[in-house]
């Protein structure tokens, strides 16, 4: 990414890509879920839940969806991000640095979310 491309700065370009890849699709998924637009088992689970349960589902789902979208963007090099494991350490490329896709590793049964979270979450 160059410092500027046309009128947009690096920060603006990053922001636009972040919102396009992560925020907007995650929000759209969440809004569609809340609107009851999902068919099959997903829609059935939503339809069967009471109001309190739906609220928990929507919040949990939105957080997971946003993280999934961020990791998916990294996996596909739409957002080429680096991570520093400890202060002063060498930055590590996240995309291709592992033998698995980050997004699938996060969201799958027995994956990172299941392993590390201290909070409830839903498998859909």
């Amino acid at each position: 990414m160059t410092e500027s491309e046309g009128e947009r700065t690096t920060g603006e370009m990053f922001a636009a890509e972040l919102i396009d890849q992560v925020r907007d699709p995650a929000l759209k998924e969440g809004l569609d879920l809340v609107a009851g637009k999902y068919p099959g088992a997903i829609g059935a689970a939503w339809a069967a839940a009471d109001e309190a349960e739906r609220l928990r589902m929507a919040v949990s789902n939105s957080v997971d969806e946003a993280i999934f979208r961020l990791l998916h963007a990294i996996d596909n090099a739409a957002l080429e991000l680096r991570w520093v494991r400890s202060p002063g350490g060498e930055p590590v490329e996240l995309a291709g640095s592992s033998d698995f896709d980050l997004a699938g590793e996060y969201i799958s049964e027995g994956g990172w979310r299941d392993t590390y979270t201290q909070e409830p979450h839903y498998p859909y």
Partner: protein
Amino acid sequence: MASRCESGPGRRQFGQTIQFVNPPVFRGCYYLGGTGTDLVCGSEEVPDWALVSLQFDRVASGAVESGGAGRALARLLRAGVRAEPFKGKGHHIIAKALFRGNTTYAPGGVETLNRWALSLSDDTLRAIGTRHTILSGKQKSNYFAYMSEGRQLTFQGVFRIETKSLIDAGVEPGLARTIVRAGLDDLIARGVTAPTHVPWTKGPVL
């Protein structure tokens, strides 16, 4: 922007391949989509919304017109499923990690392949009864389960795993098979002969 078809005179119908004088992205072979869409090549302009998929130049030479991915994609279109080359968003029908580490596929290597391999958008995933997050999770679980049985991973195995993943994620079984067949045929038409890496594991294919 509309593009003019140059595949020669004659009517091209829904699901058939067409080529263009001024292709929207690059010279290649496009599929005509949209229910009931057809056009008369050599005379009509083709709107972008009618273009569903495209192939590499070697495919545009005619290899696909006689079958393979063309037929599979046409079946997919008739089933109401719109698949597109991956453009930075969407779900690869066939897990891209299968080809990690291989640099012989397609011009530009595996990263180029990843960009052009068929994918499903969020809207399409919703239309077939699933979501991206669910499907990715099922893929990982099913690849892991398959490999834990000590089986060699071939395209036949990939077909089983990807089909099961779609079904587990809520897609109707017949449609799931059609989608995965189209994804595999598309890769084969590009010259991919076998997977080289087992997704979500540390090892290459045995």
